[in-house]
């Protein structure tokens, strides 16, 4: 009988910290150090429930962190059973290409923010935060993830935030995240990183191009159904690529002619 290593086999561990970010979004932290670079993902699993691809929310070398919106069976189970062991395998996928870019404008919508937190931490560790502008759009003030971190980030980098719908206590910007794009036109020769719901990414790209960014310098992190993370299961293709293998981050000019790039 001949045997080989099993890439599907997860390492199991319990989170050391659990924090609710919003009503349906939570952050878990493991004692294990992050061995991935910003933009990559892990497959998280619960025995008997299933497996889900989740982006890493921490910078290289920091405690491995994920911020997760409870929308499916696995992500809800983890929220409701905070003591259970979680299976982890990865990291998989490619990374935000921030090194060497003039200036980075990172645009995150909704639960697209965790890989941007990882980006901030990766860039911070190399002392590059002055080269980063973050535009973050949340649905409403109560849907903002990382409220504490955002206060600190605002002091360290150009961090701008807006909500689709304000409330009486909200003093900041109101409007979808694309309304912040005209304000970053002076960085049009830099790179833009876009991550969030498909409709938000679609309109962000249109607005970026309208304000002088070139399709070669726009990068999208695409979301697809993924069941293996290693180029086998076949669910995550966009055109000739598998998102888990060639992505999740794609240069917009490479995929702009694929009719299925946005949903």
């Amino acid at each position, binding site marked *: 009988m*001949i045997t080989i290593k099993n890439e599907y086999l997860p390492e199991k561990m319990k989170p050391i910290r659990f924090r609710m970010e919003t009503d349906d979004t939570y952050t878990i932290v493991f004692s294990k150090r992050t061995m991935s670079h910003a933009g990559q993902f892990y497959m998280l*699993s619960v025995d008997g429930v299933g497996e889900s691809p989740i982006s890493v929310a921490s910078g290289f070398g920091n405690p491995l962190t994920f911020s997760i919106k409870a929308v499916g069976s696995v992500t809800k189970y983890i929220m409701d059973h905070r003591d259970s062991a979680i299976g982890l395998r990865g990291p998989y996928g490619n990374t935000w290409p921030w090194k060497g870019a003039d200036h980075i404008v990172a645009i995150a919508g909704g639960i697209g923010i965790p890989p941007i937190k990882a980006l901030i931490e990766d860039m911070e560790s190399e002392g590059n935060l002055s080269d980063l502008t973050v535009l973050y759009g949340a649905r409403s003030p109560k849907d903002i993830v990382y409220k504490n971190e955002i206060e600190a980030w605002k002091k360290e980098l150009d961090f701008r935030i807006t909500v689709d719908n304000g409330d009486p206590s909200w003093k900041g910007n109101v409007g979808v995240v694309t309304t912040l794009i005209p304000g970053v036109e002076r960085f049009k020769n830099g790179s833009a990183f876009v991550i969030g719901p498909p409709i938000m990414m679609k309109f962000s790209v249109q607005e970026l191009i309208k304000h002088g960014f070139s399709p070669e310098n726009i990068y999208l992190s695409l979301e697809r159904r993924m069941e*293996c993370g290693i180029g086998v299961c076949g*669910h995550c293709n966009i055109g*000739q690529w598998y998102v888990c293998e060639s992505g999740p981050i794609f240069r917009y000019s490479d995929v702009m002619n694929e009719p*299925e790039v946005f*949903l």
Partner: protein
Amino acid sequence: MIYELTEEDMWRLLQKIAEEYDVFGSKEELGEVVFSKISSFSEVSEKKSSYSPKDFLIKRSENILEIPRAEKKAVIGVKSCDLRGFYLMDLQILNKDPFYTVRRQNTLFINFVCTEMCPGGFCTSFGGPVLDDYDIQVLHIGQSYFVEADPRYERYLAGFRPASDQDVFVKHSKEFNRKYGKIELNGIEKRMKWSSKLWTEFANYCISCGACNYSCPTCYCIDVYDDETGRKKEWDSCILEGFTKTAAGNVRPDLSDRLRQRFYHKFKYYKLSKGEYLCTGCNRCVDDCPVDIDIKEVITHDYDKE
């Protein structure tokens, strides 16, 4: 080197192989041609098996939290079209899926080259039925079995009689192609149209059963899911609605979107990413389709006229 074996020699060859491998073959059981253990060469059927031998390497369903393991198996009677499917899948999943990989490395396939085109078959469009890549390839003409082996397996043929005609496979290939012709692919990867009415036409009668995927010797997609007995991977179908469903929505909500995906993957995406079409012309998807959708129509359709 090509060898010329008699029927008795074939049995001797299989016995040599059986010293290292469990030997399986295509044989007739209850009116179907299936793969199961054989104990003599006379049991081997040269008819096309009812199903492709895909599940020697990708089980219909299995627990993926177990150790990927394989026994050494030899399978005789595989048709060239079905064998070619493995060489195509290798380009994407070999050395990635541990279960496929360990079995692929420990399974010896002995393929039979067809002497007649099967009904509906179009293997000639994809270089068949004589293959360039094989473990051990057999051409049965009259009383003779012409056999050639990849260098890894040449040792099994030592001692048999070298064929006087070393061009027998080349000649057979030419004769077969002359006799049956081929459907010209004609740059199908560039001809297909996203907005073609073919996809909606197929969607009008497709019943989303997935038989085309399950019967296909090149379809490797799997569903990964948990149940009370563990984490499973199971043959999946890109024709089913849930295939691309996510929390953010479904990139292919309509059946026509999913049918188009199946053909784009086979005739465009794979060609672009791997340099090969993901089809062997076996016609199994047509044979097994309950509503007679014919993949050949995707190739022959005049997209320019639309």
